[in-house]
């Protein structure tokens, strides 16, 4: 395996900018790795090597000409979740309905990556329209977890997380509606960040649940995530929910955290997110992580947020409700699949036949649940109550943040399960999102950082750190301090314990 693919993005960028290695060489090394291991992992839905090498060449030419790099990450390869539009390559959202669709414009996140000189390798696999927790709902087949190819990599952004863990890309973009960045991060031993809602533009992010959807960075180290965060965040007039405020100083916080001093930092353990339903190995890893934070000087307190017990239920009403409305755009008229247009069927029949053929079972379930929750007679009991729960969750976060600077919990109550294990039981699948959903409900920030391997099955566990809205840097500081201490205690980064993949 080429050493270039094992480097953190920050180090790779430094070598490229110093002229020690070329971006073309680094890009080619990752393309070779993808060719070798992706037949087994299936992290990518689309790879465009030619375009990636062209972008890499432009960075090398700039370096050779002595020009200042476009950003600290210029020349570094990156994988993009297939829910963000990228002009010139397909955007499928893991759905047959959008098979072969080329968006006529770039998402703001895509544009920012290109402007910053990042080299887009391709688009990553995901649960269809980001609806799922295991990447098994992709119409193009599941992604496999590099830690154990019989297991799921988490979801919906399993492709982005698996690409990092398989050393197919040093950086990736994910989107997090109910945990789809953080939970795959936890299950693959990588770092995943959900920024404060409204701080990364949703323009060009194909909508699932608009009031939750948030793009964010996926990386193998906290510092790399911070570097990528600063590239993609910022106000965008093209997104009416975009916050016109400076990007939180996440990079400075990650650097500060790496010093390993958390004296004066108050960490709150959320009682409702540790306990019932958690795998013992996950709880043990979490307790060890909290002990580590205490050793670094943090003061640990317990906080209680009773309405978090209702957050999962509220999410699985609000998100499907928004989805049922958002996915109405897939009407077989302007783009995407069209089925049954034989001259005998009406437009409405063609629409129904197309959606039947183009959507998978989970998308259909959520559209119907949303339709149900929003219908007359049920609206107040379901959607209305769920929106009240949302307010309660946000209020309880506020109260907890009055007592602690950051809050912590395990990222997922379980480690990666076997492919197929939960696929016929939607409610069991939803339970996996227990710990991540509260942050989406409140719109605040949360980061997942690897906390080691679960003693019961040897699979990665994630520590989740919540920060108040627009205080994303707090989580970065704590996660970076924890990461440095964990790596020092365990003799290196967790990701380097991932088993060698068989190379084709």
């Amino acid at each position: 395996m080429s050493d270039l693919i094992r480097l953190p993005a920050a180090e790779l960028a430094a070598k490229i900018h110093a002229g020690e290695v070329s971006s073309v060489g680094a890009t080619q090394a990752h393309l070779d790795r993808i060719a070798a291991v992706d037949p087994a992992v299936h992290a990518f839905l689309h790879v465009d090597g030619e375009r990636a090498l062209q972008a890499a060449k432009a960075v090398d030419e700039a370096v050779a000409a002595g020009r200042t790099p476009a950003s600290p990450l210029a020349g570094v390869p990156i994988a993009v979740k297939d829910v963000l539009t990228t002009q010139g390559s397909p955007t499928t959202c893991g759905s047959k309905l959008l098979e072969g669709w080329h968006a006529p414009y770039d998402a703001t996140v895509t544009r920012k990556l290109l402007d910053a000189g990042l080299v887009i390798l391709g688009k990553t696999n995901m649960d269809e329209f980001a609806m799922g927790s295991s990447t098994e709902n992709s119409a193009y087949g599941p992604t496999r977890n590099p830690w154990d190819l019989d297991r799921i990599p988490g979801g919906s952004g399993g492709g982005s997380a698996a690409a990092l863990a398989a050393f197919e890309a040093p950086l990736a973009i994910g989107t997090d509606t109910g945990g789809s960045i953080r939970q795959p991060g936890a299950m693959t031993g990588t770092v995943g960040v959900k920024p404060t809602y409204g701080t990364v533009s949703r323009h060009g992010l194909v909508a699932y649940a608009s009031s939750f959807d948030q793009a964010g960075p996926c990386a193998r180290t906290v510092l790399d995530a911070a570097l990528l965060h600063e590239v993609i965040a910022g106000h965008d007039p093209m997104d009416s929910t975009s916050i016109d405020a400076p990007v939180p100083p996440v990079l400075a916080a990650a650097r500060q955290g790496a010093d390993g001093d958390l004296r004066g930092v108050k960490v709150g353990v959320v009682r409702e997110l540790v306990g019932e339903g958690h795998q013992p190995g996950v709880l043990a890893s979490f307790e060890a992580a909290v002990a580590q934070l205490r050793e670094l000087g943090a003061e640990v307190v317990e906080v209680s947020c009773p309405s978090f017990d209702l957050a999962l239920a509220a999410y699985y009403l609000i998100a499907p409700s928004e989805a049922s409305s958002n996915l109405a755009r897939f009407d077989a008229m302007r783009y995407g699949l069209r089925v049954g247009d034989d001259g005998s069927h009406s437009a409405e029949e063609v629409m129904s036949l197309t959606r039947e053929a183009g959507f998978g079972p989970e998308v259909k379930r959520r559209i119907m649940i949303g339709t149900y929750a929003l219908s007359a007679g049920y609206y107040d009991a379901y959607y209305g109550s769920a929106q009240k729960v949302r307010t309660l969750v946000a209020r309880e976060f506020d109260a907890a943040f009055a007592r602690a600077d950051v809050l912590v919990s395990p990222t997922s109550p379980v480690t990666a399960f076997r492919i197929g294990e939960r696929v016929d039981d939607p409610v069991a699948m939803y339970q996996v999102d227990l710990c991540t959903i509260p942050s989406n409900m409140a719109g605040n920030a949360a980061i997942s950082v690897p906390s080691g391997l679960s003693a019961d099955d040897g699979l990665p566990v994630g520590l989740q750190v919540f920060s108040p809205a627009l205080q994303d840097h707090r989580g970065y500081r704590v996660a970076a301090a924890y990461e440095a201490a964990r790596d020092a205690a365990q003799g290196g980064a967790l990701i380097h314990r991932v088993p060698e993949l068989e190379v084709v």
Partner: protein
Amino acid sequence: MPSISRSEVEHLARLARLAVTEEELDLFAGQLEKIVQAVAKVGQVADQDIPPMSHAVPLTNVFRSDVVRPGLTPQQALAAAPAAEDGRFRVPRILGEEA
């Protein structure tokens, strides 16, 4: 306890423009029933007087400056159309036979 019958699923599928099959109706009826049972506990707060929320940092009156920006060309807009004719989207008939 809430319940979703097979005929209710059929109705929802029609509202949602999904031409579901008979087998799917059987499958979804059981699954949607379980999902609705699992989420119904939000009803615990139904009679509390709590305002709904949607954004962590509430925004009001979000305006963009009124300047001309390039939009899609007709070619770009039609490039992904399932069917196009004479520079327009071609769609199936929108009225039923009896209309």
